[in-house]
């Protein structure tokens, strides 16, 4: 193999990247803009900012004897994650909820204090208690509010009524409450970021498919074939150039994520392994790009066909995946991007060590998929795609 030939072809590919506005946008600007937009939209700006939920409170507890409801409201106010707005009536609060100004409305009933008092008069005799209900209305448009707010309120209500003591029969083993202060410091963007890295790399499929289709259409592949360049040299140059592009992409996305406040767990070794996994994953996308170029008759059709490989990987294997149905999540396990996201989640979100078996398993799956898809792409393109 001639390094001069390989290097010349790598240089050509990289020159294409910087001189073609469409390629530059797809490979560099798109992931950078996407990361910035997601960072701003999903709360990463400014580092570990606290996500807060706006809760409207309508206190209907009997006037003059509302000490328990005031205590409850005081406890809720102390939670950094909640921002309480007191409403005079339910109608106004519901109107704000419908308009999205707040994420929940909590209606403290008239007999709240009476109910709490009745419990403390006879804590072991439920038949003497005055039962009542705190009504909670939630913003159905926010999946995060509907999932997060009820357990938080439940926990604070428990602490208000029972104090530090458990209300049930004493047990030798207690369930520790989750630290809400800590969990509040993880933004939605933190959860999404590990998926953004493979998301950006997936678009290499389109670039490779377009590039090969265009070179084929313009007779450039045939022309290169009249030189002593071997197929191995040519494909090696493609692999190297796309790995370089994927690494640059990852660095830019990482830098942009860092700028908008993303602070992943893990050390330099974790970061190095993340780069390696994404680089290996880029080979898989070169393979899918070659398969696309084999199927496509022109660069225009290559763009369309590439989405056959882009869409499932994007929806089932990247940051979008966590919101999917259980069956879609199972389908995601057939996508190489799923294992990249999974490994990056372990490294960046959970702070897992690089020697962790699950991460090594992810790397093995990504490597095996990449080699298989790349070989399939090379064989198919070599046999049916050159003409």
């Amino acid at each position, binding site marked *: 193999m*001639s390094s001069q*030939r390989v290097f010349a072809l790598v240089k050509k590919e990289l*020159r294409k990247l910087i001189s073609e506005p469409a390629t530059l946008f797809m490979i560099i600007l798109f992931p950078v803009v996407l990361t910035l937009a997601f960072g701003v939209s999903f709360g990463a700006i400014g580092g570990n900012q606290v996500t807060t939920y706006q809760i409207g409170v309508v206190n209907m507890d009997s006037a003059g004897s509302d000490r328990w409801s005031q205590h409850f409201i005081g406890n809720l106010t102390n939670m950094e994650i909640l921002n309480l707005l007191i409403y005079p009536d339910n109608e106004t609060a519901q109107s704000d909820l419908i308009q999205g100004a707040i994420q929940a409305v909590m209606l403290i009933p008239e007999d709240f204090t009476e109910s709490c008092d009745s419990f403390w008069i006879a804590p072991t005799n439920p038949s003497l208690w005055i039962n009542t209900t705190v009504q909670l209305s939630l913003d159905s448009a926010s999946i995060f509010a509907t999932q997060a707010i009820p357990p938080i309120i439940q926990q604070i209500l428990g602490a208000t009524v029972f104090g530090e003591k458990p209300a049930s029969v004493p047990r030798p083993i207690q369930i520790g409450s989750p630290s809400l202060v800590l969990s509040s410091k993880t933004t939605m963007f933190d959860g999404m970021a590990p998926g953004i890295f493979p998301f950006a790399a997936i678009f290499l499929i389109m670039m490779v498919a377009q590039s090969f289709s265009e070179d084929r259409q313009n*007779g*450039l592949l045939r*022309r290169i074939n*009249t*030189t*002593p360049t071997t197929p191995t040299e040519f494909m090696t140059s493609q692999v190297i150039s796309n790995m370089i592009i994927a690494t640059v992409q990852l660095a830019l996305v990482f830098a942009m994520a860092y700028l908008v406040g993303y602070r992943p767990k893990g050390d330099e070794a974790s970061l190095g392994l993340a780069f390696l996994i994404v680089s290996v994953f880029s080979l898989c996308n070169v393979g899918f790009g070659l398969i696309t170029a084999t199927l496509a008759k022109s660069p225009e059709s290559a763009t369309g066909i590439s989405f056959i490989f882009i869409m499932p990987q994007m929806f089932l294997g990247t940051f979008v995946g966590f919101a999917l149905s259980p069956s879609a999540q199972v389908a995601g396990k057939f996508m190489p991007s799923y294992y990249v996201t999974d490994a990056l989640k372990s490294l960046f979100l959970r702070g897992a060590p690089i020697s962790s078996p699950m991460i090594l398993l992810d790397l093995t799956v990504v490597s095996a998929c990449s080699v298989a898809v790349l070989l399939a792409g090379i064989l198919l393109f070599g046999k049916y795609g050159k003409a």
Partner: protein
Amino acid sequence: MGNEENKKEAAIVIGNLTKRFEDVTAVDALNLRIERGELFGLLGPNGAGKTTTINLLCGLLEPTSGSASVSGYDIRKEAHKVKELIGVCPQATAVFPYLTGRQNVELFGDLHTMPKEKLRKNTDDLLERMGLVADAERRVKKYSGGMRRRINLIMALVHDPEIAFLDEPTVAMDPQSRHAVWDFISDLKKQNKTVILTTHYMEEAEELCDRVGIVDRGKLIALGSPEQLKQQFSAKNLEEVFIQLTGRRIRE
């Protein structure tokens, strides 16, 4: 094929070379010998089989049957060796539009693993001779059609090949550019290069070629120097020779 005598003497030896595409025979039992240093013209109308013959000789297509050697190397078994010796200028301009003229030329020099210094010297020399020095650092997508054709030709010759295949190198060129290319091709002959030129411009073949082979429907129907052919068919030019042989004009 491939023997020492052929390696010394003939640039190209073709024996019963045939290429069929399903029910179409593009090259039909072609026999031909082209000597070293010869400027050989392959003439014929569009679809006669000229480009297919070149594609077979430079390893882009597999022959259906027959054999051929380039500088003594078998085109099937020693295709890599053949590719080291040849330069191919394709009929359709094939240049990387996002690279500059110089980058396109240097890329092909690198693909032939030329030493850097020689590559730079040859590139400068060829760009100068083809009148492209001033535009060498511009991207080729901004070139005119004629400039692209000239870069297309330089890319085939930058590595100083022993044998050059020039497939319709002057098609769609203005008369001035065409004459510049003719001068350039004549210079190749003076350097004792073997040039295989396909064209359907009969005046181009008459002006440049030592010998011509006229092909029609995949068959070689006449072979000789332009003068010999004109004498043999008592014709004023090669166009008349072609009409006498086929009953048609070459561009019909």
